[in-house]
């Protein structure tokens, strides 16, 4: 019987090695898999390359990972925000390398990796600093920039419901990068709010089919603040 559910977040991240490339879902804090990241921090490994839209917000998620000094490089679209102080400090101290990617190119490169494409030509960024030194081509009269896929060893994502086969549905704008990161990583680990019996997710509504998901961990809802 196939059962992708694991007991704890620590089990789920137990074999991620130092130096791994790790995709982390989320747009700001929506969809950020905080508990999986906490478990990753708990493992004590570093030298990670992180692929995520932002470079951390506040004190949790990617921000906590950077604060703990585990990130060698981050590939993202929007690092600088009012609450990105841990990234800002690490970047100014020269402790973290930044590859800045336009958000749609980030999504397209992640999707390209998951879809098995060798590269993409994108119109975004043409003629800008972010395309300097990159190959370009005119196709049907429009200029494009050659960009390569972004693969990762692991994707940590947050979804709403899952069954034991790893079929996922998401919640509202917490979906964001989850479905495409799940496709692009060798091992996708989803933290979810609710496990449901196999066969109860509407097959017409499953967003990420289980083929893209290797491990699932249920996170108990936080107790309401007293």
């Amino acid at each position, binding site marked *: 019987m196939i059962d992708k559910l694991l007991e704890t977040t620590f089990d789920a991240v137990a074999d991620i090695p130092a130096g791994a490339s790790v995709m982390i879902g989320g*747009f*700001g*804090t*929506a*969809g950020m898999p905080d508990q999986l990241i906490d478990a990753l921090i708990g493992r004590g490994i570093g030298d990670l390359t992180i692929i995520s*839209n932002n470079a951390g*917000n506040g004190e949790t998620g990617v921000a906590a990972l950077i604060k703990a000094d585990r990130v060698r490089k981050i590939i993202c*679209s*929007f*690092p*600088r*925000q009012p609450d990105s102080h841990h*990234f*800002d400090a690490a*970047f*100014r101290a020269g402790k973290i390398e*930044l590859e*800045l*990617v*336009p*958000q*749609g*190119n*980030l*999504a*397209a490169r*992640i*999707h390209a990796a998951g879809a098995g494409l060798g590269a993409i030509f*994108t*119109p*975004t*960024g*043409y*003629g*800008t*600093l*972010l395309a300097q030194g990159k190959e370009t081509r005119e196709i049907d009269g429009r200029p494009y920039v050659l960009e390569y896929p972004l693969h990762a060893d692991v994707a940590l994502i947050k979804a709403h419901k899952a069954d034991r086969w790893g079929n996922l549905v*998401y*919640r*509202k*704008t*917490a*979906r*964001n*990068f*989850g*479905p*495409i990161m799940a496709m692009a990583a060798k091992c996708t680990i989803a933290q979810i709010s609710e496990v449901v019996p196999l066969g109860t997710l509407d097959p017409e509504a499953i*967003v990420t089919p289980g083929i893209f998901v290797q491990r699932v961990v249920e996170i108990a809802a936080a107790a309401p603040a007293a």
Partner: protein
Amino acid sequence: MNRMNREQMARRVAQDIPEGAYVNLGIGLPTGVADFLPADREIFLQSENGLLGMGPAPAAGDEDPELINAGKQPVTLLPGGAYFHHADSFAMMRGGHLDICVLGAFQVSVHGDLANWHTGDPHAIPAVGGAMDLAIGAKQTFVMMELLTKQGDSKLVEKCTYPITGLACVSRIYSDLAVIDLGPGGAKVIELVDGLSIDALRAVTGLPLIEAARLPRS
């Protein structure tokens, strides 16, 4: 000099967004356009983080941290709205499915080049987000901005000195002084605020602005 305030600018942009348009409003000044969209038009607001049919901010206490806009502020979803992932969201832009995108700007060139993501300050931490995708993706890219900097320099320029976001992508500027169409032929003024002459606008911008055939006053 008479000039429109930000609310008047937002009202002016909103007036030009037609029934049925799929629209992305950028962070900052353009976000305010949503407040003035005519109630008798159905207009679809897209948010880059995976939302179409975006509604206004929720009532206090009804915020959902998993229902936010591109500026990471809590929003609502209108009946008929949809959620989708990031590859679909940016396909809507890059694939030319959005009708209109309204962006803020540091500088715009008379040929429609846009600079709005980076001041060029070598000490600044750069961030681009969806700016480059939005700039070149929508069928029409409008810029909404004050035409002059606080120092009185024109933000409409012959050639951008700030780093470029997209080339030849802006078709119209809605500013506090004038509405200006841009294109290969240069900058054509189609509306002026009351009391401002085309020559006065040429003087403050230092540009050879073209005058629309029958220039109305806004």
